[in-house]
């Protein structure tokens, strides 16, 4: 639904009335859009997987991460930097025996 250059909400950014053009340039250079668990999300430019997990408040020990369908080993999380348009999947274990959840991805 987003237009590609839509404003992102940036906490602490200048009020709109002051300098709109400045804000647009600033926002575009600081944020990139990725597909995160199937949803479009804005994240900081240069985010590594490690920093993304930290920003999301997830414990590293309990998740696995795929980028564009490739599993990224946890040793590589600090150095793997995310690019605009990357499709990121973060999964974890949930209750399950045989089959109780619907596949949705």
């Amino acid at each position, binding site marked *: 639904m987003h237009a590609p250059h839509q404003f992102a909400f940036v906490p602490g950014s200048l009020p709109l009335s002051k300098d709109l053009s400045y804000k647009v340039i600033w926002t575009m250079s600081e944020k990139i859009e990725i597909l995160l668990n199937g949803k479009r999300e804005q994240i900081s430019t240069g985010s590594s997987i490690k920093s993304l997990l930290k920003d999301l408040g997830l414990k590293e020990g309990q998740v696995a991460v795929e980028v564009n369908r490739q599993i990224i080993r946890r040793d590589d999380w600090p150095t793997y930097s995310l690019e605009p348009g990357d499709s990121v999947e973060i999964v974890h274990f949930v209750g399950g025996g045989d089959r109780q959840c619907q*596949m949705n991805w």
Partner: protein
Amino acid sequence: MSDELVIGSRKFRSRLIVGTGKYASLALMREAIESSGAEMVTVAVRRVDLSDKSQESFLSYIDQDRTTILPNTAGCYTAEEAIRYARLAREAGLSELIKLEVIGDEKTLFPDNEELLKATKVLVKEGFIVLPYTNDDPVVCKKLEDVGAAAVMPLGAPIGSGLGIQNMNNIRIIRETVRVPIIVDAGVGTASDAAIAMELGVDGVLMNTGIAGATDPIKMARAMKLAVEAGRLAYLAGRIPRKLYASASSPLEGVLA
């Protein structure tokens, strides 16, 4: 005498494996697992719900010091999907154990044996300890063993049906056909079903709905624990042959004239 279930290099004193789905609460799940005495529990791999951070506490309800996590590929319909889930599970859990499910039909949840074999082959090559959920078909079980499955998990009846062991002959034939451990997976509705499975000589029983769906899951978990133990003991003890007519237990000598 120790009588352990051996899967790969892991040894288990309990022959009951339980699922962690369908419980009303995580606290109830924890209590039921404890009551079952199970040392291995199955879990599913799913997307983290980023809008609900409370979800991540699931694993904290499982005592990982005494419980082995057995991730499954539940919900997968192709070898490719199942392989993807297995790889993610290994990365998340740092263990090579995988309960492989490749479903072929939505209504019965019967396995797709062709895809199952394909996925088993690939995952065994990648170093996984593969436990495939399969039909109660001795030929398929043998093929799975031949491509390197660490155990076979034939169903007793359709998943969640509670119908018990539908084809005892097949389970017995599977026992004679494969050397790897056999774990009857799915179909157990009550304690006697689990005991019957064990009496047939299988190495273990896996269940979820039979416990989680009971009116009192904690009590049923204990019933299943006892049933699996009883069935195992009865198998080891060697039952008497079935006869059509009576044979008296008391001596005929010394009866009053």
